[in-house]
Every structure is written in structure tokens, then in C-alpha cells.
């Protein structure tokens, strides 16, 4: 009576990366299935499936994310339930599982505040990191820690490659052909 589907992005998936990505996708499906078997909701199953993918360095989310121009990591995530319950975090550094923060935000929107105050459905940047840490989610305690939390050797190598291209004397992308293994990293 249930169904789970996950994706690991549109773009270029090289032959060499496919086994790792396939393994991550299967693990994500199993995490969602376990959640449902144990009586969890569809929203919890989505959150747990995506958390598995965020923890896998072969995916461009959480650990393994692309680096910014300055070499840091900033993540986006959102969840939505069929009841229109929605939560999101944007350009947030240093939360181990951004989707868990989005999911917690979504659930909190269901709890009324006194005086008719409205709870936020989206938090961005440093404010989101601090909020997540206050809520007990695994989050970096400082900007410096945040910069290291999701960085992986592969992402750093690719960042160095892209920086080298930018530093080319021409200063232009024209004529530059990226290796297949790096093309997918250009997209979200």
C-alpha cells in the first residue's frame, strides 16, 4: 500500500559514478520503507530518505555538495506534505541534514503561536544554522566549523579545477571542455 521514489539529480552520471549513486538510492528507499513500516508518516519517510542521500558523498546535497566560489558549502532543502504543510531552508551552511531542518520547520508551522503570530516556513543562511542548533539538530557551532562540515576531497578537487579554469589567462569559459565526470556538478 505504499510507494517510494527517489532521485539523485538530472545531469551527467558517469559510468564510474553509477554504482555509488545506485547504492545511495537503494539505501534511501530502504530508509523510507523502514520509516513507513514503523508507522511513520509520508513526510517522515521523505525526510529520512533524503537524509541518507545527504550523508552520501556521491550526491550533490549535504555532504558532497558543490562548493561556492569562496570554497564554502551552502545548501537548500524543502519538504511538503499533501496537507500543504511546507518548510524550507535556503543557502544554509553547517546543518548536517538540511532536509531535517526543513521538515522540522514544516511541522512547527502546525503549532499555533499566541497572539496570532505566524511561524516562518523558510529560514536562510546563518539564521537557519543557529535556529537548527537551538532545536537540537546536528549543526556546526561556528562559521568556521560550518565551512568544514560538508566539504569532501572530491568537491575540493573539482573546486580547484574550476578555479584554475577561471584563472586562465583568457578569463573566459569558451573552449573549455570539462571531463565527463565533472559535468554533472555544474547543475543543482
Amino acid at each position, binding site marked *: 500500500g505504499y510507494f517510494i521514489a527517489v532521485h539523485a539529480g538530472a545531469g551527467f552520471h558517469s559510468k564510474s559514478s553509477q554504482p555509488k549513486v545506485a547504492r545511495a538510492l537503494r539505501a534511501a528507499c530502504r530508509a523510507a520503507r523502514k520509516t513507513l513500516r514503523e508507522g511513520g508518516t509520508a513526510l517522515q519517510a521523505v525526510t529520512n530518505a533524503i537524509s541518507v542521500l545527504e550523508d552520501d558523498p556521491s550526491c550533490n546535497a549535504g555532504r558532497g555538495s558543490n562548493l561556492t566560489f569562496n570554497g564554502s558549502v551552502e545548501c537548500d532543502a524543502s519538504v511538503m506534505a499533501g496537507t500543504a504543510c511546507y518548510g524550507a531552508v535556503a543557502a544554509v551552511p553547517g546543518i548536517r541534514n538540511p532536509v531535517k531542518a526543513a521538515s522540522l520547520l514544516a511541522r512547527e508551522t502546525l503549532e499555533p503561536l499566541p497572539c496570532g503570530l505566524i511561524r516562518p516556513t523558510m529560514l536562510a543562511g546563518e539564521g537557519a544554522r543557529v535556529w537548527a542548533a537551538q532545536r537540537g539538530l546536528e549543526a556546526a557551532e561556528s562559521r568556521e566549523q560550518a565551512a568544514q562540515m*560538508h566539504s569532501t576531497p572530491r568537491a575540493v578537487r573539482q573546486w580547484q579545477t574550476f578555479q584554475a579554469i577561471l584563472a586562465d589567462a583568457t578569463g573566459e569559459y569558451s573552449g573549455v571542455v570539462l571531463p565527463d565526470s565533472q559535468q554533472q556538478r555544474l547543475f543543482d
Partner: protein
Amino acid sequence: TVGAVVVDGRGHVASGVSSGGIALKQEGRVGEAALYGAGCWAEEEEGGAGEEEGAGEEEQQQRETKEKSEGRRLRGETGASEAAPLGSKTNSMHGVAVSTTGVGERVAACLLSKTAADAVRAAAGDQGVSGALRSALRRSVLKTPPPNDAGVICVLAQRSERAHPDQGCEVKVEFGAAHCSHSLAVAHCGAPRAEPSVHFMP
């Protein structure tokens, strides 16, 4: 970007998406994964809850008029009470959940997840979910400037209660995926003990 869509045993749907964004992005840049109506979408609509089949013609007309005025009546949808056995009580619901991926600026500009959900609700009966998603990509993100690579997965769920409470409910699920990129990596599972099936869609 990664994402998920789920239908639970009661036919309730949810979706999500998470992304590290584009390589070398400007700090502070926000992609589709955080944006309402772009990265993920989920909605449910109840239909025929507790209504008894065999209602008077006048009552039926009133209901249809109300549905039309609210713009809620879907193409191809007849409502569970009309399909249920005479005299039975029904509690139907349908839900749709979408998760997207691609070039965030393009996906966000055309609200791809909401656009895809609308397309599936309107045309899934004619084209299937994947066909409806392909149409949605053609009408939205493919009209934006390149690079406009994108992908979308979607699940459409229809729940109908059986005649007696102890018989539980029946949930019908249709899954689809489409993309306009080199590939899209997808996995799904729908049976209690089945291994997840993985596809790298060309």
C-alpha cells in the same frame, strides 16, 4: 540535487528535495530546492467523504455546481461516490507529489514542481504520469534559455475506502519521471519485500 516522493499506506503523499547547488555559486545564491512551487510539491484532495450513493438528483446537481464553482473538478475524475456500489459509504482521496532537479534558476523561474503537479492532475489519465511530465517540461523549462537541464519525478495516488471499515482502503499509485538532461538517476520501490529498482534514465 536529491529528492523523494512517498505515498504511505493510507494514500497520503509527501515530497522533498535537497541540493548543494551549482559549482562555484555566489554565496547567498538560492536554488530551486528551497523555493515554494519549484523544488517540490505535494497536495491532496478529499472526495466523497462519507457520502452515500443514491443521493437525490437535486443534491447531486448542487454538488457538481459547487465543485465547478470552486474550480476543483478534475478532468477525468468522476468522484468515488459515483463509482462505489449502491448504498455503500466511501471516503476517497487523491494526491500528487513531485520532486524536481536541474538548473535552479530555470526550474525556479517556471515553478516546475507546481507546473508538473498541475499537468499530471489534468492529463495523467490521457498521457500517463510520465507523458504529462514530459509535456510540462516542454511547456515550461524548455522555453527558458539554455542551459535548461531539468528532471522531475512524480507520484499520483488514489485512495478509496472499501465498503466496510475492517476491509481497509485501496491505494492505487502511478509513478512517472521525465527529464531534459543527459540522464536522471531514479530509484523506486513499492512492494514490502522487493528490492528498490534503480534506473539511470538516458
